């Protein structure tokens, strides 16, 4: 990995707020190695008790969809409301499906 400036590489940070919950994207940090990335993420994003787990991934390995292709990517799902689970009766007492 080449370092173009003296801030190190960019890493994306994902935090798990509680055990068993999915990791969510929180932001990014600069770091020159994975240990530093984890520690910086810990210092920046979990100072107020936000997390019990952290993932860091070099930003260059994130593959993102192209906003210019949004119509082709996302619009075809708009008229398929039957894919939403709103046609089912919720079992009594359950909050999520």
């Amino acid at each position, binding site marked *: 990995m080449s370092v173009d400036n*003296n801030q190190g590489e960019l890493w994306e940070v994902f935090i798990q707020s509680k055990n068993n919950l999915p990791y969510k994207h929180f932001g990014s940090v*600069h770091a*020159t*190695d994975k*240990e*530093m990335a984890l*520690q*910086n993420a810990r*210092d920046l994003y979990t100072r107020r008790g936000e997390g019990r787990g952290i993932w860091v991934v070099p930003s260059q390995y994130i593959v993102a969809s192209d906003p210019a292709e949004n119509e082709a990517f996302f619009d075809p799902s708009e008229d398929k409301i039957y894919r939403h689970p709103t046609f089912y009766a919720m079992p009594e007492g359950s909050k999520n499906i």
Partner: protein
Amino acid sequence: MTTEEMLFQYCLRMGDTHNVFAHRMGEWCTNGHILEEDIAMTNIALDHIGSARAWLMYGGEVEGKGRTEDDLAYHRDERAYVNMLISELPNGNFADTIARNFMFDAFSLLYYTELANSSNETLAGIAQKVIKEARYHLKHSSNWMVRLGDGTEESNQKLQAAIEEVWLFTGNMFEMDEIDQNLADAGIGVDCAKIKDQWMSMVMKTVTDAKVTIPENKYMLSGSKKGIHTEALGHMLAEMQSLARAYPDAKW
């Protein structure tokens, strides 16, 4: 000296050490080489403030004269401060800070691991909380030791110079005077002489990984337990205490 009087001194020594250390780390605020490191160092500063508060608050209670943690932190002069010399050393460059922190963090982890067994419940409680912080501080400083030492030729040279600079202040951490010995014998305090070998092997491991060496010079500076300090402490206290002294009843 009664046990309470000895315990009060003991609390001041550790409380002052953390308080002074916190101030030094706080001086990095806005001066870190990247935003992330800036926040890492001020986080560490806040951990030390928390430890200082715990020690000084309990010290005030043990003394029994109604002095609060703030009275003890902001209304005592340099000669009354009994912090370890290593904590007052100026930040210097980043390698100086890392070498200083590493030497102390390794001590701190071993010290609090022992103190967790104290027969004094308050001290054992403080220790259990600080151990976790010390473990993180040591991770931070030892990783940086290796990054700098095993980095470029320049960073290696700077770290080597930093270690030589800080080395003669490390012996002071393990000094035991009568107060320390009495409290250690009573199962309240820590016998620091006993953790020195472990400390040395931790230091040797990281120093080896970092491709630097420790000096052969065995001479060590002393004096902190009698309130004798380097010239750096007075300047620091003047700044640290100025607000509390100018506005004695200042509130947030």
